[in-house]
């Protein structure tokens, strides 16, 4: 499959360039909007790259076949109780607390329409493009969500991290920043740079955003100024490492959501657990947990208006493999958190783990399209209607049977 070169998510710059408008004269390019942004709800989509093993995170211990399929990779610690049938991974104590507070839910045995080839590449593209099995990969579904908001501003939607996120790419204006990026300029240099970039709208807007966004990060941990360039280089990279952490990404996301941002996305890697899953999976669960807990604590009262969805390209094989891991599979789980959530629920229809119940006798059988859950969130948070959901956001998705009720 070919990944089409998507239109940039900063399409506004093209418009600005084409119109030849200067920074001062172009209202589109004023980075901080004064106008109200669309609604008051917030949606954060976390992409779990690598194929998160839903069966290890949300363990179907009530299924008699489960223990036999995973004899040695579940570890010695007992899972945390959910609803009697499922248990939560023992490392997810923080998430479990959210569960008991009614702010966490899951959907199990879900998948994108992607089947059989089990390629991370293609699977993630289909997840982020939100299309059907043979759909054209050109833009992302969160970008199409922004396109439905007439009053959207530059910072309504935000990609966090170094990588370009397909899920936010498209013709709608969005912005992006990576907390590991730094821009340390003396006041005099900043003035000179701004002057140099003034004549070019593309450089001028990006510089303006960069200077403004870089200032928002908490640099209090950064060491004092040094004149030694070698030191400076080392410090800037050490700072990048510190700020590249998941807490920094989540904190930055929350900070932006305190203001104009309503939609944000970032990714967490490390889920491709072919070997010695027990150790590496726990580490990745802790990262996901840290991201969600940081969002909650940094969002404060806004947590009540926020929904977080963590989605992955596919689940993993139900049987553990010969190297105490699992291989690429099909059905998996979605993690949902937030103050407005119908919590303490594991949504979905459980297909069973007997060999005849599996997809191709190896994977958890998907019983629902993962996009139904995202559609439900968008309907509840942003008031999207059926035709917008079925035609614009998720072309080809059939919601005639209704959407799962994930919000209060």
């Amino acid at each position: 499959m070919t990944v089409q070169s998507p239109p940039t998510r900063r399409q506004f710059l093209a418009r600005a360039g084409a119109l030849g408008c200067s920074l001062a004269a172009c209202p589109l390019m004023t980075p901080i909007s004064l106008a109200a942004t669309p609604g008051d709800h917030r949606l954060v989509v976390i992409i779990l790259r690598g194929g998160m093993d839903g069966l290890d995170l949300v363990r179907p211990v009530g299924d008699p076949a489960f223990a036999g399929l995973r004899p040695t990779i579940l570890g010695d610690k007992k899972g945390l109780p959910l609803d009697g049938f499922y248990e939560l991974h023992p490392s997810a104590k923080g998430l479990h607390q959210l569960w008991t507070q009614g702010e966490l839910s899951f959907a199990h045995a879900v998948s994108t329409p992607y089947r059989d080839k089990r390629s991370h590449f293609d699977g993630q593209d289909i997840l982020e493009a939100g299309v059907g099995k043979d759909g054209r990969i050109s833009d992302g579904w969160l970008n199409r969500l922004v396109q439905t908001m007439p009053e959207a501003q530059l910072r309504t939607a935000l990609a966090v991290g170094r990588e370009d996120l397909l899920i936010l790419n498209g013709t709608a204006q969005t912005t992006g920043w990576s907390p590991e990026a730094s821009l340390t300029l003396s006041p005099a240099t900043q003035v000179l740079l701004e002057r140099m970039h003034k004549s070019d709208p593309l450089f001028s807007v990006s510089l303006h955003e960069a200077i403004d966004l870089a200032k928002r990060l908490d640099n209090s941990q950064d060491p004092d100024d040094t004149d030694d360039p070698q030191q400076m280089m080392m410090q800037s990279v050490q700072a990048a490492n510190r700020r590249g952490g998941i807490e920094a990404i989540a904190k930055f996301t929350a900070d932006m959501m305190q203001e104009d941002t309503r939609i944000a996305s970032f990714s967490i890697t490390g889920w491709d657990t072919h070997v010695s899953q027990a150790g590496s999976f726990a580490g990745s669960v802790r990262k996901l947990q840290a991201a969600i807990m940081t969002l909650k604590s940094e969002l404060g009262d806004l947590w009540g208006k926020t929904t977080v969805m963590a989605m992955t390209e596919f689940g993993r094989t139900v049987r553990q493999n010969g190297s105490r891991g699992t291989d690429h599979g099909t059905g998996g789980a979605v993690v949902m958190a937030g103050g407005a959530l119908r919590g303490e629920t594991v949504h979905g229809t459980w297909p069973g783990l007997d060999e005849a119940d599996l997809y191709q006798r190896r994977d958890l059988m998907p019983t629902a399209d993962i996009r139904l859950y995202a559609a439900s969130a968008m309907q509840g948070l942003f008031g999207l209607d059926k035709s917008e959901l079925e035609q614009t956001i998720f072309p080809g998705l059939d919601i005639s049977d209704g959407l799962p009720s994930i919000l209060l």
Partner: protein
Amino acid sequence: MSFDPEIAAVRFGFGLGPRSAPVQSTTGMLEALRGADTQAAMLPIPGFVETYPDILEIRGLGRARRAAKDKGKTDFDAAQKALQVKRREMRRKRNAWFLASLSRASMAEDTFRERLVRFWSDHFTAIGKGNQFEYLGTTFTEDAIRPHIAGRFADMLKASSTHPVMLYYLDQFASAGENSKLAQKGKRSLNENLGREILELHTLGVEGGYTQTDVRAFANLLAGFTLKKTGKAGFDHKKGNPGAETVLGKSYGTTTPRVEDVMEALDDLARHPDTARHIARKLATHFVADTPDPDLVAQIEQAFLASDGDLVTVYEAMLDHPAAWSRDLQKVKQPFDFVASSLRALDVSHEALETRTPKERNLMLLGSLKLMGQAWGRPSGPDGWPEDARNWITPQGLAARIQWSMTAPPVLTTPLPDPREFVTTALGSLAGDTTLFAARAAETRTEGVGMILSSPEFQKR
């Protein structure tokens, strides 16, 4: 507008620098291309066959590790360790090959050649994927691109389409003809990946006149490719599709699949008018402007058709067009090109880079390229890196460029040049008034040099 040595260096090379005088004519540029590849000789990078033993070794160590799983912890740990050691060695090699690629660009006399190498390597994007091929991306450029840079498009296409890194990247070793015994027994199936990308990306272009039926037939024609024990691509007729295949209305082959039939189809695709148009547009877009002058594209296209894809003639048509010499800089340098041209302006030699510790090099080069949005050898898909300036000059992308400009130069070269002189070294008469002013007004040398490298004039070409 006609030939201009500064534009030649900036738009068609890796910029100005103190080491070498800019080329003085288009004839000079084309003559250099026809001459020997001295840059490759100066900083050698091995081809695929040469590094194939490494793949075999990694494969063997992987197998040993699997076998050791049943033999207890000590054996497994030892096997695991051996594989890790080998991987570390391969990472070192890959980093050295990256460094050589960068220095070829920054130190070259014939920089147009290096720009073309990058252009064609991106046109035929082949990513080293999987745990065996991930280190070997540069072998594709060495084997399939460099030898054909001044040759015929058809030869480059054939070299690219049969290179192991490309075949593996686009899943051809796993493909088998629809009606092959392998497919009928359910052991393999047809994989359309390479067939589709050759038509869509490498030759006709996505707007070219081909259908899904052509993709499937062409994929069947390609299905016989294998990897031989020598590390060269082979062709196994049992894996291919029996019978003739009709691609774009022409029938190829008879009964037993043969590699000659694939080559005939590639020759025909190479000289197809859609291919000429597609290549012309890509060249003009890469070198001259994100939205190039249609007349420039037409001139290149005609030269491509008239010369049957003789690449020097094609380049000449581009360089003969007035739009090629506009002093309006309409392209943004991609991060690799920005770093290479900075090294060139600062006159940082390969030896100077080599004496740095791996950690420092990673920090200043590979790590910084990643932050700028262009991880070396890792574009997101077979369509390669985006051309559009908007993909590169994002808030975080521009911040990474500025931060690099402000911190890397003093580590790379001491003493730093005087900004008032460096502005001319780096930009010649292309420096704008505000950049000239900033070079004089900077509080320190570091900031002066940093601002010159961050200026839109230096970021663009």
